[in-house]
């Protein structure tokens, strides 16, 4: 704005050259911006479609007629193919991932996967009657957030955001944010508090996870 006004008042001056250069630069960058924008939209659409399909798969399982054991097995399969479990596990361990030995890393990944699946499939009966509706999606710095409304019988619908990464060959869920609380961030804070109180020992964490996985 200011540059334009100045340009009108003063004829050939360094300022006009600068503003012209800026204008030219902007004009040149515009097509790039537009493609960037289109790419972001395509990514958002892809993520939305992915969450839409995933939520239908989830609803089909939890609201289906199978036995609880069959539902748990089907749910585990959905988690394994659609959630970036290793990525979430690494995020949750945070800075301690680097200090862990390769053996500890391997053990931790296996246990994390088991505990996560147990925590989700153990409550499969409680999810009956759930309805998930995809509302919108928006790119964030760490992925694409797809906002859904999750309604359960006899309670008000909750806002649940699914963070999706579309960098890999297939889209993957990297986080679930329920009413503003991120599951992986909460888990990371839990682990880091535990590690701080246990001399930053990853093997202590592994022992604790072993206990959780055993239950």
């Amino acid at each position: 704005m200011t540059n334009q006004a100045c340009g009108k008042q003063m004829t050939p001056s360094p300022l006009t050259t600068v503003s012209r250069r800026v204008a030219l630069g902007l004009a040149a960058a515009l097509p790039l911006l537009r493609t960037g924008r289109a790419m972001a939209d395509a990514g958002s659409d892809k993520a939305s479609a992915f969450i839409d399909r995933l939520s239908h798969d989830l609803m089909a399982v939890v609201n289906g007629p199978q036995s609880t054991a069959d539902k748990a097995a089907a749910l585990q399969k959905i988690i394994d193919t659609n959630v970036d479990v290793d990525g979430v596990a690494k995020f949750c361990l945070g800075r301690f991932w680097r200090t862990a030995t390769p053996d500890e890393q391997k053990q931790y990944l296996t246990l994390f996967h088991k505990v996560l699946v147990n925590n989700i499939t153990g409550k499969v009966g409680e999810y009956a009657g759930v309805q998930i509706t995809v509302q919108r999606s928006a790119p964030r710095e760490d992925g694409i957030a797809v906002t859904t409304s999750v309604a359960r019988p006899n309670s008000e619908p909750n806002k649940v955001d699914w963070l999706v990464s579309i960098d890999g060959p297939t889209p993957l869920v990297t986080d679930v944010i329920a009413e503003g609380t991120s599951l992986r961030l909460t888990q990371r804070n839990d682990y880091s508090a535990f590690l701080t109180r246990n001399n930053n020992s990853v093997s202590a964490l592994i022992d604790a996870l072993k206990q959780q996985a055993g239950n």
Partner: protein
Amino acid sequence: MSASRTSPSRILLTTVLLGTLLLAGCATRPPASDPDALAEYNETNDPLEPTNRVIYAVNNGLDTVLLRPLAIAYRAVLPDMVRSHIHNVLGNLGMPVQLANDILETHPRKAGDSLMRFAINSTLGVGGIFDAATDMGYPDHDADGGITLALWGLPNGPYLFLPVFGPSSPRDAAGTGIDQAINPFTWVGHGSTDRALGYAKTGIGALDARSRVLDDLDKITSQALDPYATIRSLYRQHRQSEIEDARADGQATVPAWFPAAAEKKQ
């Protein structure tokens, strides 16, 4: 609620609490040679952690022997519908404070919602038992002193775990104080009946709030390795998202039913 009175039990409680504060002290700051640990310490922002953990343990003990069993009984004895009516009445009694905060946050449409909710639910909703206002297009929202102070730019400050109240921060504690001060029910009547009603409201409010998080809190205590840290994380994230929702108040200043707005649309 009636004004506070100094009683022997209150003095004892204060002494015990101050004693714990002095004994527990502060968290040790990691040395600068460990930047990762230091960054985490700053991010956690819980310099009073040892003290907070003591209060958390005391609160947790009280919860285990008193509040949780009562909340379980409350949920078992009263049917869903009655509990939701009680929740509505409590929410309606809090509406004047919500309205005041909407105004302080300069959210005129939200203030209109709160005002209409109080007017409709107090009358048509029979003293707040039924939430008729939501169906008539005046949905509920979050507004309290802590959110108002956040929108005014006051920083959150370190984590505090308060006796009885639970997770908080200097900003939220100040917000709760302001809410109490601007609540007309704080100042109405000082007779014994009013005081009894005030205590009843506080007691039922505690049961209502606790019974609504029974399953969630049980899940946290059974699944978290460090429930104290998990609750701290959840509390912070939840408050942050409430503040962001309040900040992103997207309601147009001119309501849809206003003629000028209708013309603009066409």
